[in-house]
């Protein structure tokens, strides 16, 4: 401490102290804000994402959904539908729609992943709603239970999507699509957002864990081999009946004609 008491009245003491104090302040501040620094970065990145999304929205979506996503005569309002809804609709290629028909069909997505994320960020910025998910977050392989999933599926999903998840008809040309080959996150997002004709399956009614079980069951059904031969679309009596009535009965009629024909 002799050093301090000896030089404390030195003419450079005050400027030096000032420099030390200011540097300390500066370093402390930068250290304290080091972690949130990336946050503030992502916040600005987020706002550019929202802006980017708005640009895409104005170009590609606003003609139907309105300039402020308020909806129109042919399309619903998107305020409060959440990022999950956008990720599902745009990520599966359903939106933008190909034409104004009853069914928004699954097709090759028009927008790539970044553009979809931007659109989702823009719609999510309008009002809170379910957040979009990543496939890694859907831990169906680890947390799902196939047997539970089967029971839930038969009780909640099978009436529209068919007992083997192959899809089925609704009214006036609408249909419930097949669930084969759908990404787990899209299945999950569909359950929480209720796209098009599908109702919402709330987290309290079908818990997130149960939703993973349903996905696990669908994935099990997807990889189920056709041990009995041809699957005939797994739609039950329709194709089976068609096959047996057309080809089975046709063959029998042919044989009956041949049997009674006189040989020459």
């Amino acid at each position, binding site marked *: 401490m002799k050093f301090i008491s000896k030089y404390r009245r030195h003419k450079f003491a005050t400027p030096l102290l000032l420099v030390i104090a200011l540097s300390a302040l500066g370093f402390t501040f930068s250290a304290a804000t080091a972690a949130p620094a990336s946050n503030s970065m992502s916040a600005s990145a987020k706002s550019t994402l929202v802006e980017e999304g708005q640009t895409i929205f104005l170009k590609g979506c606003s003609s139907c959904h309105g300039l402020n996503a308020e909806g129109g005569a042919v399309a619903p309002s998107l305020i409060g539908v959440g990022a999950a809804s956008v990720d599902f609709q745009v990520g599966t290629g359903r939106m933008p729609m190909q034409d104004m028909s009853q069914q928004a069909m699954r097709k090759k997505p028009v927008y790539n992943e970044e553009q979809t994320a931007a659109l989702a960020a823009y719609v999510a910025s309008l009002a809170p709603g379910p957040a979009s998910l990543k496939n890694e977050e859907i831990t169906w392989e680890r947390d799902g239970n196939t047997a*539970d999933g089967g*029971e*839930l599926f038969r*009780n*909640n999903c099978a*009436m*529209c999507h068919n007992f083997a998840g192959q899809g*089925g008809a*609704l*009214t006036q040309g*609408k249909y419930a699509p097949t669930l084969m080959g759908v990404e787990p996150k899209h299945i999950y997002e569909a359950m929480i957002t*209720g796209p*098009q*004709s*599908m*109702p*919402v*399956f*709330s987290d*309290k*009614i*079908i*818990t997130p864990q*149960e939703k993973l079980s349903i996905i696990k069951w669908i994935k099990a059904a997807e990889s189920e*081999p*056709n*041990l*009995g*031969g*041809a*699957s005939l679309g797994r739609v039950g009596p329709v194709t089976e009946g068609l096959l047996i009535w057309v080809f089975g009965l046709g063959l029998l009629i042919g044989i009956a004609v*041949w*049997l009674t024909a*006189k*040989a*020459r």
Partner: protein
Amino acid sequence: MSKELEPLSDPGLPEHIHRRADTDPIAAKRAEQQVAILFSLSALGTVLFIYSFFFVKEDVFIFLPILGNTNAHQLGIGLGMAAGLFFIGIGAVHWAKTLMPDQEVIAQRHEFKSEPEDRDAFVKAAKEGAEVAGLGRRPLIKRTLIGAAALAGLPAVFMLRDLGPLPGKELEKTNWKSGTRLVTDPGDRPIKASDLEVGAVAQVLPELLPGQKRTLEDIGKDAVLLIRLRPAEFQLDEERLSWTHEGIIAFSKICSHMGCAVALYEQTTKHLLCPCHQSTFDVTRAAKVIFGPAARPLPQLAITVDAEGNLIAKQPFTEAVGPSFWERSS
């Protein structure tokens, strides 16, 4: 009778036309070879069956056009057995049609009655048998036999009785009582109004009391579908509107037509469809039938909330759920 009055003269048998194989040895040889080929195809089919059964692994899948990925094991077994049986039949018929004699033959009918000697011999043998068995001399055996035979018919009567008794009022009753909590199916968790978002549905059952068990028969009558709409979307009368709770409406899931589970809900049109016969019910108008064979709307369950905010039944169903039956009172 003169020939002119005969309405139709007996045309007799048509002239016999010989087949090519009857007259041409080369054609006969060819037909023989064809039959042999068909039988050989059958043999190949059986070999394919045996080979597939033992040597084709069950996890081998082959791609066939139209049919898609098909299990080779099952396909080989099926095709092999089909060919094995089919070509024997085809070969035999082809053989009969081309090579076996096809001359028309007249077989005269004869009387079905047996010769008088045979008939007398049979009656005599029967009488002698009865005499030796001593049925007339041993009345105990005769009576117990008659008794046993009569009793043996009784189980059939009991079994027919099993078709009844008539269900009476049983079909009109469900496990929904005033104050029964609605629980998720499966999971048996009570539901709060806030658990359902607008556009959400839930499959529910009445909560089980301690010690109570749920049978499939119970589920077949008790199953209910909860749907949440915006309250403004309802077009209900005062009473039915009071049966809903904050836009949540509950209907029996058992179709009033044939009893299928009606749970195919279109969120956009607010229509509820039965997957069996496409009966369509309008949820906003108390499940009024707007299409299909159903004759009545789905019974609506009056719901409200208890002190803890859980959804409960306000009262039991006011009418029988499910399809019509003879004793139905409403």
